[in-house]
């Protein structure tokens, strides 16, 4: 019997949906002007993982945004682009982007749809231009067909490229960590006593900036990494002195897997991060007033906070085969 060849029993394709966890508020991006379809998502995902879009054909979005690191860049402090060029910032993880109103560490980009443009055109990232990508896609099967399936015709333009990539990136929702299941009181999920102690410490010491449920309030602050920041941060966008050296408060979801940490990837472990808050906070000009005295933490408090932070890991998201390069 040879009838049961694997490719002949294709299961019915699951409909791609944008699912809002019940403990999340309404999203900022809701696909109103970008109808989510299986074909659009599939095209966006293919583009995301296609290194041939970059100038030297070596780098894809997925090279810097790796699924096993919750789409951050696991092994690099600051991202590596084409020709081994080194960027100045650490690639942030990509999930729950539909709730973000601004992108990048300095909030310079305001729409998820236009956020891949910088990576595509930056000489240090993918180092190419959209015209070159369009020309490549037009002449490379099966792209024209994929655009037809996604948008109804084989026309390929920057808008379709960006909208399809967004059908992939905006669908990336991470809201199924242990923390979420405990919050949603799902089937007896409970914190261990260490996790619970950590959660209480976290609410007391961290959540004024790393606010639930996204573990960021999306504001720009300095947590005192340097006396004088080498990277302007937010003031590069606003031109305001009070924003010099401030960066978007990063999410802590999946933090176990998104290291190295901070905008320049200077810390390799959560221990180093906690020690920074405990003893390393520098009196930078725009240091957030809440951190004037650092955040004193003893050894057992550190362990408890770490235990809590690990409940923010969403294994279902990190291992979801729908999102991997297939």
């Amino acid at each position, binding site marked *: 019997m040879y009838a049961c060849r694997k490719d002949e029993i294709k299961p019915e394709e699951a409909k791609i949906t944008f699912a809002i966890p019940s403990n999340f508020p309404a999203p900022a991006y809701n696909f109103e*002007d*970008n109808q989510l379809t299986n074909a659009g998502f599939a095209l966006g995902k293919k583009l995301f993982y296609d290194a041939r879009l970059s100038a030297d054909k070596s780098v894809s979005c997925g090279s810097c945004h790796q699924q096993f690191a919750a789409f951050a860049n696991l092994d690099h402090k600051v991202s590596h682009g084409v020709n081994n060029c080194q960027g100045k910032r650490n690639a942030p993880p990509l999930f729950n982007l539909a709730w973000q109103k601004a992108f*990048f560490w300095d909030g*310079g*980009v*305001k*729409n*998820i*749809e*236009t956020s891949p*443009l*910088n990576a*595509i*055109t*930056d000489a240090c990232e993918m180092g190419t*231009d*959209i*015209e070159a990508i*369009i020309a490549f896609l037009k002449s490379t099967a099966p792209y024209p067909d994929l655009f037809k399936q996604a948008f109804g015709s084989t026309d390929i*333009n*920057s*808008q379709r*490229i*960006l*909208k399809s990539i*967004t059908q992939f990136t905006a669908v990336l929702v991470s809201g199924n960590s242990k923390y979420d299941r405990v919050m949603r009181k799902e089937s007896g999920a409970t914190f261990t006593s260490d996790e619970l102690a950590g959660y209480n410490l976290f609410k007391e010491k961290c959540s004024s900036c790393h606010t639930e449920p996204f573990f960021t309030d999306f504001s720009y602050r300095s947590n005192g990494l340097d006396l004088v920041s080498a990277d302007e941060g937010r003031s*590069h*966008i*606003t*031109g305001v002195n009070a924003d010099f050296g401030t960066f978007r408060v990063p999410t802590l979801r999946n933090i176990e897997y998104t290291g190295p940490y901070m905008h320049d990837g200077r810390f390799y472990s959560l221990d180093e991060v906690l020690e920074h808050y405990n003893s390393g906070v520098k009196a930078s000009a725009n240091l957030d007033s809440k951190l004037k005295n650092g955040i004193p933490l003893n050894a057992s408090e550190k362990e408890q906070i770490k235990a809590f932070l690990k409940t923010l890991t969403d294994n279902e998201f990190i291992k979801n085969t729908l999102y991997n390069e297939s």
Partner: protein
Amino acid sequence: MKISQYLLALLCPIILLSSCKKSNDEINPNTKSSFTIEFEHQVNGAALALNTTTYKNAKGEDFKINVFKYYVSNIKLSKTDGTTYLVPESYFLIDELKSVSKLITVNDVPTGDYTKIEYTIGVDYARNFAGAQTGALDPINGMFWTWNSGYIFVKLEGTSPQSTAANNMLTFHIGGVVDPSNTIRTYSTEINAANPLRVRTDAKPDMHFIVNAAALFTGTTDISFATLNFTMGGANSVIVANNYAKGLFRLDHIHN
């Protein structure tokens, strides 16, 4: 040339007065037509020629222009009775390098006599932050900042011996929509009521504007290339925008 235009301007109303009823039927707000606008690029009265000709700014400093492009958007037309019409989806990128871009067609305009035109030099606030756009607003046109969402409204690049930048470069990328660095400026001009913009189904008028690229460097603040030769948004872009808000466009004539 000038005299014949004046003659035409004088003759036009006569022709209209003596013409048959048909023309009245066509001033029907439900019928739409179009008109064209021609942008003639100059530098202080001389034709703009990229890369070759040397011009002088208000400070008497020499400069050449290699790139000159800008957005005109949200075209709004007014009638003498005060009613206005905002042309939907009116976004145009005018580029000295592409002669077709210097003659734009404005569609979907209700027929009628218009005595004022207004438009944004640049792109409105909302579109600066909107999702992926196409047409004139396609980022492929090189007028979109990828590190700080938003459009470059006016781009002038060139050289000046006075510029202290590398290779004596001049880089004026004007944009930004957030205070205090908001560079959205509106241009408006009255149209002589004796020769208004007459949009008809059977007559598509042409407006002719003179665009003076040197207006970036004078008007409110005379700019010296020794001190200002590079701006990509921010306070210096505001200085330039305040200059060109005054002198970039001048309505020269209308062919009805």
